[in-house]
């Protein structure tokens, strides 16, 4: 059986989303497993979103922001970085492999890097297999 993961991806508007667009304009092909959500800055991304994505059945979450120092809003990406490390520690405690959550920097000219990242992430998740969060929830709900 071929496992097709779903990956929710949060991209900042100024660098990473533009980079993903560039991958499109440059017609670079990548795995269709990434679902992109646009936020203005990676600093807007909060743990709630990430947990929600897992809860709704995402097998992986990918966060992309501007390269350090490049943030359109100066330091939003650093704040994202700090949250990322804490949330990664938390999801591990909750039995979720830390590789299911990834943070990377993609600039507006790095369409290719984004495409590669998407493929890489999909591969990683495929190796890890489906994320059991949603199943667990469903089992829980069945009890009642």
């Amino acid at each position, binding site marked *: 059986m071929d496992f097709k993961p779903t990956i929710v991806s949060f991209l900042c508007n100024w660098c990473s989303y533009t980079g993903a667009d560039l991958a499109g304009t440059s017609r670079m092909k990548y795995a269709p497993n990434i679902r992109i959500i646009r936020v203005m800055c990676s600093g807007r991304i909060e*743990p709630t979103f990430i947990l929600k994505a897992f*809860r709704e059945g995402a097998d992986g979450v990918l966060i992309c922001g501007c390269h350090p120092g490049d943030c359109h809003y100066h330091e939003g990406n650093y704040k994202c970085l700090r*949250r990322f490390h804490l949330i990664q*520690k938390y999801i591990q*405690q909750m039995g979720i492999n830390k590789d299911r959550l990834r943070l990377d920097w993609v600039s507006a000219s790095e369409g290719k890097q984004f495409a590669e990242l998407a493929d890489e992430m999909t591969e990683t998740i495929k190796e890890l297999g489906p994320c059991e969060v949603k199943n667990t929830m469903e089992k829980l709900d069945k009890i009642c």
Partner: protein
Amino acid sequence: MGEDEKNKKPKLKMAVYWGAACGGCCVSVLDVHEKLFDVVAAADLVFWPIALDFKYKDLKAMPDGYIDLTLYNGAIRNSENQHIAMLLRQKTKILVAYGSCAHMGGIPGLANFSTKEQIFDRIYCDTESTENPEKIKPQHIYKVPEGELELPIFYNDVMPLDQVVCVDYYLPGCPPQTERLLEVFMAIVNGSELPSKKTVIGAYEKSQCDECERKKTENKKIKKFYRPWEIEDDGETCFLEQGVICLGPATRGGCGTRCIKGNAPCRGCYGPPPDVSDPGAKMMSAIATMIDANDPEEIENIIEQIEDPAGTFYRFSLPGSILRRKVV
């Protein structure tokens, strides 16, 4: 009955029940002290097994909607909890999830880091003081010569009340502050307009900090996290500014900042303010933002100092949080 009696409002029918709870909530009801007389004057306690002698059959016998107000404390741990919760729901007009456990899962909810098997193994086999060479564990049905013995089913997961029945109001706290209970009680008795359903009552909209008397500034930058005993608290400065994790900002006020006044940081028993679904996640976000570093390695080192984020940020709210339990 005289005319007076007739005009007098009928006495409120009230029930109190506990699920997976420590009993503290029930005690908190008793903590009304002399006000108990007012309560008794206004309400009849129709079901409160811990205080008075009631049987399940009494409850079953009541017509639907017979009880005006039920304070259900404790989480749902087993089939008995669930059964009674559902029964009470059926019989009750206003069902209140009373206390942190019923509200969000509370301390028993921390069991969601483990499975049923792990818990049984630990309790009945592995604890140092246990001698159980045959590894006998509780069974749902156990045949004895006299017939079948039945124990409630021990669930794999702990749940807050609202995951098994519809809850009208939440009255948070571990245990709830007695004054808050009285306020709520009196409001119901007096027939004041009740807030919209499924909301928290008996707590403030604003978080702890609003009441907290410690000095707060914008200077929330953390280079190092401290456990409360690792630092000499000056009793005045905001815990967060001292690098001590305090869940106050993500926790409703209403308790009168009990812990903080006792120089211990808030642990979050009063649950999240409105609009926040997962206080742990919110607090993690806030705490991480305060870290005063941009270098990935330095950030990791600082975060390393938070030994148990899940336990710290979800002490009272794990079953009620987004992830609810550890994935196995």
